[in-house]
């Protein structure tokens, strides 16, 4: 039987202020692989926990693709595939295509925002080691968790646990990986 791997060391707080202070100290200490778990968005954490955000670019590109798709679809149907002469108007009567170009731009961009968020977050992910923490259901209620992950270069079970205990959390948990 393979040895059980550690996923990370987790500190539980009941106050957002303590969590933010602890997260800041963890970052300043030099840790890079850490994550906070909170019941609502706390703006300060965006600057503390290292993270990328590619959703805006994805949405822009997807929206542009929507515009091109809508124009291409309408041009191909109205001017090439099924040309209809209505009162001698030009076949490429693009002003009347603007509404659909707009709608498909929004449709493509909005889908990219939604599915992009799911993609980057790795959803759906019905299982995660953090769910092993007995009190983790407080993370969707009034609990604030800070996890230093074992894959961090500075991670070292005892030292990391002592470091987390120095913030005076409610409890420190060692979480097993699969």
């Amino acid at each position, binding site marked *: 039987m393979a040895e059980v791997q550690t996923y990370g060391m987790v500190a539980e707080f009941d106050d957002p202020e303590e969590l933010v202070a602890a997260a800041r100290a963890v970052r300043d200490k030099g840790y890079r692989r850490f994550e906070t778990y909170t*019941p609502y*968005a706390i703006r300060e954490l965006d600057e503390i926990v290292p993270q990328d*955000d590619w959703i805006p670019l994805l949405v822009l590109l997807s929206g542009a693709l929507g515009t091109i798709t809508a124009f291409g679809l309408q041009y191909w149907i109205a001017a090439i595939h099924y040309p209809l002469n209505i009162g001698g108007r030009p076949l490429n009567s693009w002003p009347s295509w603007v*509404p659909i170009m707009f709608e498909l731009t929004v449709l493509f961009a909005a889908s990219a925002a939604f599915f992009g968020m799911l993609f980057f977050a790795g959803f759906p992910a019905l299982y995660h080691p953090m769910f092993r923490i007995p009190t983790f*259901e407080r993370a*969707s*209620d009034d609990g604030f968790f800070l996890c230093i992950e074992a894959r961090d270069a500075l991670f070292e079970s005892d030292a990391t646990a002592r470091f987390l205990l120095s913030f005076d959390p409610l409890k420190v948990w060692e979480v097993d990986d699969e």
Partner: protein
Amino acid sequence: MTIDERQRRASRPPGPGTTVAIVAPGTTFHSVTEQISTIVTSPDVPPIWFWSFAAALTLVLIFLTGVVALISTGVGIFGNNIPVAWAFPITNFVWWIGIGHAGTLISAILLLLNQPWRNSINRFAEAMTLFAVACAGLFPVFHLGRPWVAFWILPYPNLMTVQSQFRSPLVWDVFAVSTYATVSLLFWYLGMIPDLASVRDRATGRLEHAVYGVLALGWRGASRHWRWHKTASKLLAGLATPLVLSVHTVVSFDFTIAILAGWHSTIFPPYFVSGAIFSGFAMVLVLAIPIRKAYRLENLVTERHLDNCAKIMLATGLVLAYTYVIEPFTSWYSGDKFEMAVVHNRAAGPYAWSFWAVIALNVVIPQLLWWKRNRTQPLILFLISIDVLVGMWLERYMIIVSSLNRDYLPASWFRYSATAWDNIMLYGSIGLFTLLFLLFVRFFPMISMSEVRELLPYSRPGGGSEK
């Protein structure tokens, strides 16, 4: 002292210029979670829910009878006939889709404008949008005559060697409404993921746990999740804002692109959008007032929410009143005798009753909202909202029927009157909307817990709140 105790004791100072807080003092992170998720997880349901459900289900069964009659007999069961080809079905369509617009306004535009009070009403306003659009979408399809080939309007490779006509506003409308429905659904679901996780973590039964577990998609509240969630929400809000304005604009194009006197007017897009938001806020209030009472949510949906919604209703109502004035003015100023005839026909013709009812219901009675007492008295506000909903339905009826019934050729003038089936479909769709909404209230968190938590004291370092 734990944060729960500190939040309980904090008496939040009211915002500038207001006397009532957005969230009642004494609300804590935990109390919000308990209050909202218990509605979903507890087997107890307020008695009024059952009575409303029974009434709504009855209406839905009547509605289904209407659908069967329509499909088996044909569109002739309605009172529509040339030249009044639109009448009830399109009136219902425009009415329902307009109602939906307030939900998007609350969830998207007020998010971008940084109006934190929206946080406790946006969820059910979005649900209202979704169900209103669902009801709206049915009517043009029923109205086609052969509803089972409704997909012919979409561009797709087919063996009939025909294709969509993209110069027609009716095709634009299909794209506008289906995009609107999709984006509303995505926005609604995205916002609900963190709250579904709260319900998952509080579910007691095995089935409940599994269902909400799957619906929550594995949400853990990680800071990256929140960051991407906020980015996606804000982008969706930014996209939904022009979308909501475009949808009703395209709906008004269905009218204005036609060369019919009384429809062919550049004022229609703002006219329709303001009317849509006017009726939508009326529906928000018609839903919010009984719900906050039945589920004792007065601490989260406060008098301030009622007051703000009523103010938006008053403002959009005034825009609408302005268009009522400017419409006959442009007809007169154009010097076109057909335009003038329509104005005369509306005010003194066979459908004059609808014109004057619209003036009374949409312009005169809503002026009661100038008094703060009326804006914060739930019963009075509820009655004014019902009045607005009726008025806005009649407005669309008036626009459609009074323009169509007397067209350019007097020989084809026609006196339209609705049949019983027309009424069955209208009231049946109200039943369908109510049924869907009641199911939403029972099985989904109807107030955004995560966004309400952001409003509470001590939710940010330093003791303050997000907004």
